[in-house]
């Protein structure tokens, strides 16, 4: 079977630049390590529906989705290393931060 990545972008784009937490559902192994490592508690496990099956995938919590600019600001990387990204050994989480 062909593998298709299901990628979710959480974040924003505005005058200050763009910031996205990107989670790849196919790579995520549902371990939950990132949830513990996030200092802001912005992540949780969410059921996603892929190929008629449910899969637990890391996701930004609903209440945090609209305020990531504040929630993620303490971690916003100068070097590209963020706790959630660093902890994921599946490389399922990436972070895009492009200040203008």
């Amino acid at each position, binding site marked *: 079977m062909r593998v298709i990545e299901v990628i979710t972008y959480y974040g924003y*784009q505005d005058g200050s630049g*763009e910031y996205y937490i990107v989670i790849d559902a196919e790579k995520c192994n549902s371990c939950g390590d990132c949830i513990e490592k996030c200092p802001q508690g912005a992540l949780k496990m969410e059921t996603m*529906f892929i190929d008629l099956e449910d899969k637990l995938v890391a996701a930004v919590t609903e209440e945090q*989705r609209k305020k990531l600019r504040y929630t993620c600001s303490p971690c916003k990387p100068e070097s590209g290393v963020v706790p959630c990204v660093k902890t994921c050994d599946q490389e399922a989480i990436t972070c895009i931060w492009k200040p203008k």
Partner: protein
Amino acid sequence: MENKEGKQEYWRWQEYRSVMPGRNWQNSEIITAGVDVGSVGSKAVVMADGEMYSWSVMRTGSNSSDSAKKVLDWAMEDTGMTAKDLNYIVGTGYGRVNVPMANKAITEIACHAKGANYIWGPTVRTVLDVGGQDVKAIRVDETGKVVSFLMNDKCAAGTGRGMEVIADLLQIPIEEVGKMSLSVTEDPKPVSSTCVVFAKTEAVGLLRKGWSKEKVLAAYMRAMAIRMSELIEKVGCERDFVITGGQSKNIGIVHRVEEILGIKRLPVPNLEQTGLDPVSAGAMGAALYAKALYEKSLKR
């Protein structure tokens, strides 16, 4: 529309329902339903053997489970069908966890992608879903499966709810705002606020400055369209491109998004002939997944 005091409520859009003429559910093997409880509108679709049978669109009340029940009952009204005849029900949307009769809840992203694939066919690659409270850009493959999606991080501005607020402020029926916003010869500078509360304040200021309602609408819709286009550009806008959700009816938004992206959306099919309403795309996808899940459960 007028409320009890006879005061006109400009934001109040018309609810609607329909049953496909000449189709008989009694002869069908599998009957499924999709219920999409959105923040502004609730949609139900009933499918007989994977084909549109009936559907309904109504406003979501303060209680999501009541709204879910009401909208599904309305879709089945006068058809002789009852909840017992439904083999499988999938709930989706903002209030999906509150669809009490659903066998399963599925995220609206997956359902909108599937619904768009059903409405327009396998050539659809990019879906812009503009709902009551958020905007989503979804990339799909030829089977209607989600490849990637982007959630709007901002609040109600640039969505159906924001549009209702502006319609009410300007005292223009919600169904007419799109057309009216296109009557300006050139779009003014877009409003700068992304928050609907601030955007409303800004609109009041512009009216005071002597701007016409049309011009204010144009400035508001331009701002909405720019934000939506940014989302799409992030996931990449590959042809074919379609728009679903309540704002797919708003030509003021549709035209501006098309202009900014430099790409036309696929035309909306004739509702009366096909029953394929982009507003109900999420409910359609839910009903299709309901069929697939029911068939899968039979094989076990």
